């Protein structure tokens, strides 16, 4: 990303310049290169939770409707991470990351951020739509990661698999493979989280983001396991799950 630079001729009044910069930086913000000088590593850790408990695969939990489920898979893509500076600039970090509860090495993303003060973070759950239409991808987007529908090209943005006594599916399975990128069935969601306090980036900083899986069932929409134990295609149900998982993130700590 190139820094935006705007030249304004001498004939422009100073007042306009001031108004312009106020608008430009304080309201809208500007993109800034994340690869410049004076950067330090910032770790962004995702801590998957069931309400207030740290998620343990193969453990049995209850959602807010009292439905029991034994979770075995919890994965999602994080992309377009950006930090918001105290001056309302937006610093973007390209890349798509697959967070997989079963693999602790995937749960921390390290970015190189400029030594500034930051007041918040935003990111997308799910890769951008362009990746769904550009052939075979590599890295975390390699279809071998099991997050790609081969029969109806497109990424699974997030996956939650479990068993539940209230599931009506075979083997009491609960299988939520949430995807869809076309207009009307898009399941990519932007998440914006202000920090509880300003993060002064002086090196060795960490942002811990909690992801509460129970929000999948109970947030904007009420989605009971007894009602729908399986979601494996793009469509209305997938969009409802996407609305719900967009609400699962909170800032646990900034240090």
């Amino acid at each position: 990303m190139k820094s935006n630079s705007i030249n304004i001729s001498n004939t422009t009044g100073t007042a306009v310049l001031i108004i312009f910069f106020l608008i430009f930086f304080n309201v809208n913000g500007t993109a800034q290169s994340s690869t410049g000088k004076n950067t330090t590593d910032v770790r962004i850790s995702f801590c998957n939770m069931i309400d207030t408990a740290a998620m343990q695969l193969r453990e049995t939990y209850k959602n807010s409707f009292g439905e029991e489920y034994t979770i075995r898979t919890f994965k999602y893509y994080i992309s377009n991470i950006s930090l918001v500076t105290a001056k309302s600039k937006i610093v973007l970090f390209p890349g798509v990351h697959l967070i997989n509860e079963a693999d602790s090495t995937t749960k921390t993303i390290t970015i190189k951020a400029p030594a500034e003060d930051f007041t918040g973070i935003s990111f997308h759950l799910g890769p951008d739509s362009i990746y769904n239409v550009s052939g075979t991808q590599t890295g975390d987007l390699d279809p071998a990661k099991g997050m790609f529908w081969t029969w109806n090209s497109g990424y699974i943005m997030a996956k939650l698999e479990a068993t539940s006594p209230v599931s009506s599916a075979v083997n009491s399975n609960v299988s939520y493979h949430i995807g869809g990128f076309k207009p009307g069935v898009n399941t990519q969601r932007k998440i914006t989280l202000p920090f509880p306090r300003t993060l002064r980036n002086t090196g060795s900083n960490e942002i811990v983001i909690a992801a509460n899986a129970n929000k999948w069932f109970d947030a904007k929409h009420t989605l009971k396991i007894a009602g729908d134990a399986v979601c494996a295609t793009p469509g209305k149900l997938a969009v409802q799950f996407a609305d719900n998982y967009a609400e699962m993130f909170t800032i646990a700590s900034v240090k």
Partner: protein
Amino acid sequence: MQRLITILLLLFVVSGSFISQAFKPAPPKEKWKGATPITFTVPKGWPAPQYNFADNPLTKEGFELGKKLFYDGRLSKDGNFSCATCHQQFAAFSTIDHDLSHGFNNGLTTRNAPGLFNLAWQKDFMWDGGINHLDLQPLAPITSINEMGESLDSVLLKIKADKEYKKMFKAAFGNEVINTQKMTKALSQFILMMVSSNSKYDKVMRGEDTFNLPQRLGYQIFKTKCVSCHQEPLFTDYSFRNTGLPLNNHLKDFGRMKITGDSNDSLKFRVPSLRNVEFTFPYGHDGRFYDLDFVMLHYRSKVAKGPTTDSLVKNNIPISNFEIGQIKAFLYTLTDTSFLKDKRFATTGLAPQQPMHE
């Protein structure tokens, strides 16, 4: 002043749109010059291909790697099913004489294996168009439990363990990194070269040959009764249509609707190319028509009228027995013998690779 502020406001809106613009995937940085380029020739009078060759430049080494993969049974779980198992060259890369094809663990496909040729001109794949890029197409049969039944991870493990493959990936792409992307790009390179454009029909169009009387009459009938969907020169318009085939009660396959979720697409399937149609029997998405006569009889009197039945066929197509004979005479001129026997696409004649022992 007011105007200037407006302009500046507009400016920041525009710059804002740049900020929110999604990152595009990095263009391939394959500056590997060690491989021998292959030129892809578009036959005269044909449209521009859909495939973006700039993303996957064709090379002799990439083609040879793709060919090895295409004929390698290890891409399946038990080692028995290569791409070529269902896509046989002598049948224009369809499965000869099979409505459905055999797969892993006595599985059976749910659709008829189409011939593979001229895929550079196709923008989405499968009878329902669900796959949006040629490079992604092989992933479906490889991972389908009733076809090759293998996981991509296992395929990559088997390939990585093979010294010959290591050499071939390096020759094709400049390094030994083996991943899904490189595997599928190599397969695409092999498949993209399968261009069928040298049938008698093509020779006639190029002025190198002439139709005999039945062929000429058949071509005239074809141009009044069939060409709306089977457009020259590729003999398909790539659309999805309900041609009045009643729902198959065993397969319960609603075609395009499965992809779009739109009931207006119920029972719609891709219009297939008629090139090499002499060897791609049986016909139809589920192979229900054993030969061309059954297809003609269907259009003459058996079209099922439903809410999505195509307007071009819903009142049947009047075709006399005489005309059927002429149309068939014409359709057989679409057989491209030089393609069916092209040694570049043939297996080297060795026995299929033995499955790896894990």
